[in-house]
């Protein structure tokens, strides 16, 4: 899509206040983002105006206590760009959503300063890593987690702690753009392991094309740091 085209997103969330709040953030974003409110009707994501939206903002728990990973997988499998917006702060759930192919995972404590950039990144097919997801990566002790470099861990940690890329750059004495590079590399490494999804393979191949990461680095699979 062209850069000047209006980004559209569809939100599935049973809480009217959340949808209204996100709608307001999108309307006030510069440039604004068009938001379609599907309420709690998953069908509206698949048909009608929701089916054409660039980004799906998906409440993981439409039924309380039952994270709907199945629906997330179906949306990702058909090529939708999904942002999971969840009240869950558990790291394992965040990592599972990323593994299923969600481009961003936001907890509902994270506001427009993360949701708006996440929608823009997702519309481009790029991942967005919030501080909470960054925290999940640094605390990840799963046996099949990808191997991260020391610098990548430092950046993730600083991003989790400060929630400001300018501060991360100042603290670690690197350019703000380099901060993004390290975070993206981590996402590429995570995308390279586990389940395959179209969003993930796009991410990996683009990173290889751009020289962001090399095949050799991607294939370092030892889990010990």
């Amino acid at each position, binding site marked *: 899509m062209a850069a000047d085209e209006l980004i559209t997103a569809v939100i599935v969330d049973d809480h009217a206040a959340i949808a209204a709040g996100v709608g307001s953030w999108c309307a006030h974003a510069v440039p604004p983002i068009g938001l379609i409110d599907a309420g709690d009707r998953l069908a509206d994501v698949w048909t009608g105006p929701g089916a054409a939206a660039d980004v799906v903002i998906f409440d993981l728990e439409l039924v309380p206590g039952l994270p709907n990973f199945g629906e997330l997988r179906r949306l990702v499998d058909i090529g939708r760009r999904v942002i999971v917006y969840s009240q869950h702060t558990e790291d394992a759930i965040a990592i599972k959503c990323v593994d299923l192919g969600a481009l961003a995972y936001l907890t509902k404590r994270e506001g427009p300063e993360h949701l708006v950039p996440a929608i823009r990144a997702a519309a481009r097919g790029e991942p967005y890593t919030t*501080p909470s997801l960054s*925290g*999940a990566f*640094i605390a990840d002790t799963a046996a099949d987690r990808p191997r991260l470099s020391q610098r990548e861990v430092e950046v993730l*940690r600083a991003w989790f*702690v*400060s929630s*400001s890329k300018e501060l991360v750059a100042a*603290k670690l004495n690197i350019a703000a753009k380099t901060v993004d590079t390290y975070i993206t590399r981590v996402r590429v490494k995570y995308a390279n392991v586990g389940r395959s999804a179209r969003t993930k393979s796009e991410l990996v191949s683009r990173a290889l094309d751009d020289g962001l990461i090399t095949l050799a680095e991607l294939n370092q699979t030892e889990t010990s740091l």
Partner: protein
Amino acid sequence: MTADLFEAALRHGLRIATLLAASAIVFGLGMANLLRHMDRYEPALAQFGAMAALGAVLAGEAALLVRGRTWRRLRGLAITVVLGASALSYAALPDRRTSTEIDWVFGAANWVGVVVLLDRPLRSCVAFLVAHELTALLHLLVFDHPTQQALARFATGSVSVVGFPLCVAVMAAILHRLGAVAAASHLEIERVRASEAGTAEAHRRRLRRYGELSVATIPLLEGLADGSLDPGDPRVQRRCAIEAARMRRLFAEADSVADPLLHELRHCADVADRKGVAVELDARGQWPVPPVAVRRDLTEAVLTVLATAASRARVTVVGDADLVSVSVVADCDEVTAPNPASTGVRVEALRHDDMVWMEARWQPTS
């Protein structure tokens, strides 16, 4: 030696003495009388049987004494054996001979019964002695057609037969009660000592806290009270905010929680929250519980920054077994990083535009 141990030793001694006395009476006096009048019994074999039964009970007591145990469930059986031996002896006693020399069991079985019942309440001994006395009285009344003289002899004999063992039983009961009283006072003394120790510890803790508060909080309060410090001065307000957070932290230190560091950080954050700063507190990883002094160094950075935060702050803890890092990021004026008192703690401050990031790190191994 504590009072209850002393009492136990006394009771042990009394038990041995009673056993020796009973053995001497049964095998000395009783046996002598039995042998002397052997041809008078009907038959003598029954008397030897009774003697053997009493001997068996005394042997049992000796065995239990050596092993430091009591009769417990066998007590009823032993008393039955004693009363049975007594009845057997009377059945084989010639008529009109109750409470004479020939009636050896009258002055012997009573002692054996007392030996068995020495550690029981006094009423058990009394009941046994009455039963023993009644056995003899029954024989007297049924077989002896007693004369006035025989009744007088029986009464005289009963004084010693019931009286002496009863004295021993009373003494045992008194010792028993003394023991109970001694044990109760011992417990009371222990309780008072424990409570005194607790009070002293609480007093020490309060003195220590007072000492800590006297460095910063008390001069601040004094300054506010005598007007030398202006409550409208932002620096004074900041000092107040820091002292309020320190006091909250001090109170939180006494709480028993799974993660004291996070618990105390929550209290520090709460103080800032109340004055309208939106504080996020987030943590990742698992870390060993730092000692109080280290926790103070780690939280000090946070409360210093929070005291001047204008509107928002993010407090995070990231830790593992080798490093615990507490960070605070807030929109606030320039702050000076506090000097950590503990070794192994480092504090770094970074200022970027209007944001301050202060980080306190602790390496448990150093």
